[in-house]
C-alpha cells in the first residue's frame, strides 16, 4: 500500500528527476541522438566514395566490346563522370601480358581495375576483375547488372525474341510479403513493422540503461552522504526502495510517452498527409499499450536491481562491477532482437520470449512483426510478474542490509550470508 511516506519519497524523486533541466535535455537529446545515429549509419552505408573510378573493360571480341561501350555509355554513372570507362579487345592469350603492362598504372591507382569478359562468359557468365582491391563491392554493384544485361542481349539476339520477351528475361524475381493472420483480409506487409519493432527495442534499451545508471548513482549518493540513516528513521527500507522505484518508473514512463507520441500519432491517425514512401504500419493502439505495459515492468525490474546494487557497494567504481551482470541482462535481449530481423520465427527468439528478463524486450519485438496469440502475450507478462515476485524479496533484503553497511566490497560469500541472516 502506498502511504504518505512512500508518497513523499516519490515526490522527491520526481522533483529531482522529472522537473529538471537535465530531464528536458535528455528527453530531447535521445531522439536526436537516435535519429542522428541511424542517419549517420544510412549515410555511411550509402556513401560509396567511387567518384572518378577508372575502369578498363576488355572483352575477347570486338563486337562484344562495342556492345558494352554502347550500353554502358548510356548509363547515368558514366554520363556524369562517376565512372570513367575505357574499352579494349584482347585475346585470352595476350591478357597476361596486357595486365603486366598495366601493372604500374593499377598500383599507382591511375586505373582502379580491369574487367575482362572472355568469350566463355557468354555461356558461363564468369568474368574477371584485376585490381589492387579486387573485392570492391561498389564496383561489382554498379557494373554487374549492366554487364549481365549485355550478355543476356547478346545471348538472346540470335534467338529471335521480341523486346517484350527480352525485357522479361532481363527481370529478376521480386518478393512481395503478405501477412496471413487471424483477420479475414490478407494484407501486404512492408518492412515498416520491423523498423517499429527495432525502435521499440532501442527505446527500452536506451531508457533502461540510462535510468538504471541514474538510480545506481542516486542510491550510492544517499548511502555515502549518510542521508539514508535519517530517512530510515522515518520510512522503512521497503518503503524507501518502493518510493524510489515508483518515482524513477514514473519519470521513465513520462519520457517514453513523450518519445512515442509522434510515432503513435503518425501510425494510428490520419491527421497528417504522409509521403508516399512512408510505410503502411497497420498498427493499432493495442500494440503501443502492450509495449508500454512491458516497458513499465522492465522499469520496475531494472530499477529494483540497480537500487540493490547501489545499496551493496560504497563507491561508483566498485558498484560498476556489481552493475555489470544487470547490464548483461539488458544487452543480450537487445542483441537477440537484431537476430530476429532476418527471421522473426527463429527458435532462439521464440524461446527467449518466455525467458525472464529476455522476454521484456524480445516479446514486444516479436509481437510487433508476428501475430502472437493473446494467451502467449499474457503468459509473457505473467513471467515478468513472477520475476518481480521472485527477485524483489531478495533485492529488498540485500538493499535493507547493504544500505547501512560500509567498508570493504562485499564478496559473493558475504552476500549469501546476508541473504541467510534473519535480518
Amino acid at each position: 500500500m502506498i502511504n504518505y511516506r512512500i508518497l513523499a519519497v516519490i515526490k522527491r524523486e520526481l522533483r529531482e528527476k522529472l522537473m529538471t533541466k537535465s530531464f528536458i535535455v535528455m528527453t530531447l537529446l535521445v531522439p536526436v541522438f537516435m535519429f542522428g545515429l541511424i542517419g549517420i549509419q544510412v549515410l555511411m552505408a550509402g556513401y560509396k566514395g567511387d567518384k572518378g573510378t577508372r575502369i578498363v573493360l576488355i572483352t575477347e571480341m570486338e563486337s562484344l566490346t562495342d556492345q558494352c561501350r554502347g550500353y554502358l555509355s548510356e548509363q547515368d554513372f558514366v554520363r556524369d563522370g562517376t565512372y570513367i570507362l575505357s574499352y579494349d579487345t584482347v585475346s585470352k592469350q595476350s591478357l597476361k601480358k596486357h595486365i603486366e603492362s598495366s601493372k604500374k598504372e593499377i598500383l599507382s591507382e591511375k586505373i582502379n581495375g580491369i574487367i575482362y569478359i572472355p568469350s566463355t562468359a557468354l555461356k558461363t557468365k564468369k568474368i574477371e576483375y584485376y585490381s589492387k582491391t579486387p573485392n570492391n563491392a561498389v564496383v561489382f554493384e554498379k557494373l554487374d547488372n549492366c554487364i549481365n544485361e549485355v550478355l543476356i542481349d547478346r545471348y538472346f539476339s540470335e534467338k529471335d525474341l521480341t523486346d517484350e520477351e527480352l525485357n522479361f528475361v532481363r527481370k529478376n524475381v521480386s518478393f512481395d510479403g503478405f501477412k496471413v493472420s487471424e483477420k479475414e483480409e490478407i494484407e501486404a506487409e512492408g518492412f515498416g513493422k520491423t523498423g517499429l519493432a527495432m525502435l521499440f527495442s532501442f527505446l527500452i534499451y536506451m531508457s533502461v540503461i540510462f535510468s538504471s545508471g541514474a538510480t545506481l548513482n542516486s542510491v550510492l549518493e544517499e548511502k555515502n552522504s549518510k542521508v539514508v540513516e535519517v530517512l530510515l528513521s522515518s520510512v522503512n527500507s521497503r518503503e524507501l526502495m518502493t518510493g524510489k522505484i515508483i518515482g524513477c518508473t514514473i519519470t521513465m514512463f513520462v519520457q517514453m510517452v513523450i518519445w512515442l507520441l509522434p510515432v503513435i500519432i503518425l501510425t494510428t491517425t490520419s491527421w497528417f498527409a504522409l509521403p508516399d514512401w512512408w510505410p503502411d504500419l497497420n498498427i493499432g493502439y493495442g500494440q503501443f499499450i502492450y509495449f508500454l505495459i512491458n516497458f513499465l515492468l522492465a522499469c520496475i525490474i531494472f530499477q529494483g536491481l540497480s537500487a540493490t546494487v547501489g545499496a551493496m557497494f560504497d563507491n561508483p567504481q566498485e558498484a560498476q562491477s556489481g552493475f555489470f551482470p544487470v547490464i548483461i541482462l539488458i544487452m543480450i535481449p537487445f542483441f537477440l532482437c537484431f537476430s530476429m530481423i532476418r527471421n522473426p520465427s527463429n527458435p532462439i527468439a521464440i524461446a527467449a520470449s518466455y525467458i525472464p528478463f529476455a522476454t521484456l524486450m524480445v516479446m514486444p519485438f516479436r509481437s510487433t512483426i508476428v501475430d502472437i496469440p493473446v494467451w502467449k502475450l499474457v503468459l509473457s507478462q505473467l513471467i515478468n510478474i513472477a520475476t518481480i515476485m521472485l527477485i524483489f524479496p531478495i533485492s529488498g533484503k540485500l538493499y535493507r542490509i547493504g544500505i547501512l553497511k560500509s567498508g570493504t566490497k562485499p564478496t559473493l560469500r558475504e552476500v549469501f550470508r546476508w541473504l541467510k541472516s534473519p535480518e
Partner: protein
Amino acid sequence: MPALEVRNLTKIFGEIRAVDNASFEVPEGSIFGLIGRNGAGKTTTIRMLMNIFIPTSGKIIFKGAPIDQTFRARVGYLPEERGLYKKMKVLETVLFFSEVKGKRGKRVTEKAREYLERFELTNRINAKVETLSKGNQQKVQFISTLLHDPDFLVLDEPFSGMDPININLLKDIIQEKRRDGKVIILSTHLMDYAEKLCDHIAMIHKGQVILNGNLSEIKTDYSKNSVKLMHEGDISFLDNHPMVRNVTKFGNSVGIELTDINQTQDLLKLLLEHNVKINSFDVNDIALNEIFVKLAGSAPKEEFNFDKL
C-alpha cells in the same frame, strides 16, 4: 507509566555483542542521557529504538505497547553521522523531512521559515545544501529533526562539530522542548554536557547498562564522602594522605573521596595550609565523569564499529 521502556535489549553482530541485555526507562517530560564512551553501544541502541536495526532479542515498549510506525512518526532523529541531499535546496530539504513524517502544508512552511530565521539561515533559504558550510549544514539537519514537532527527540552526539554559539542555541531549544513536555533522548560521550542537561541517564559500557536512573539521585548516592574541588596549585600531597581514599582528576575539577565525610573541614584546612587557591569546594558532590570512572574503570576499550562487520 514511562514514555519509553527498554527491556533486555540485545544486539549481536557475528561474534560481537554490541548491546548486551540493556534495560532502562525514559520518563515522560525528561531529558534522558544515554552516556558512555565512543563505541560503547549507544548508537546501536538508538538505531534499535528507531527500528533501523532489529534487536536480536529484547523489547522496546512505547506507552505500554511495542514500538511501531506510530512511534517513528512522533520522533525527530538526529543521527551521529549527519546526512542531507546535497543538491536539494535548504527550504525544500527541511520540508521534505517533515513530509516523510506526515507533516506538510502552509503552517509547516511558516514554521520552517521561523526556524531558519532563528538559526540565521534566512538568506540561504533557496541555496543548495552543498553550497553551505559544514556548520550551516548541521543547522539544517537540526531543523529537519524538529520541524514536524515531534514528541520525542532522539539526538545522537548533537554537539559534535558545532561552534559554542550554536551549541548554546541548541541547548536552549532542547530546554524549550522539555518545557513543552517533549521527551529528549540525548546520546553523548561528553559527560559535562550530559550532567548539565539531563535529569535521567543510562550509562552504557561495553554494550551493558551499568547505571541508570534519576541523575540527582545517582549523584547523591555516589557523592557520599566526596568533595568536588576546583583549584589552582599542587595537590599531589593528597595522594597518600590517610584521610583521603582516592583522588580523581577531570579537566579543571578534581574529585576527592574521603575515608570519613566528617573530615571535610580538615581537608579544607589542609589545602589552605599548602597554599592551594580554592575556586570551588562542593561537599557531597561528584562529577558524572567520576562516577563513570568508578564504575567502568579507565581500561581502554577497542572502539567497536558495527559497519565493519
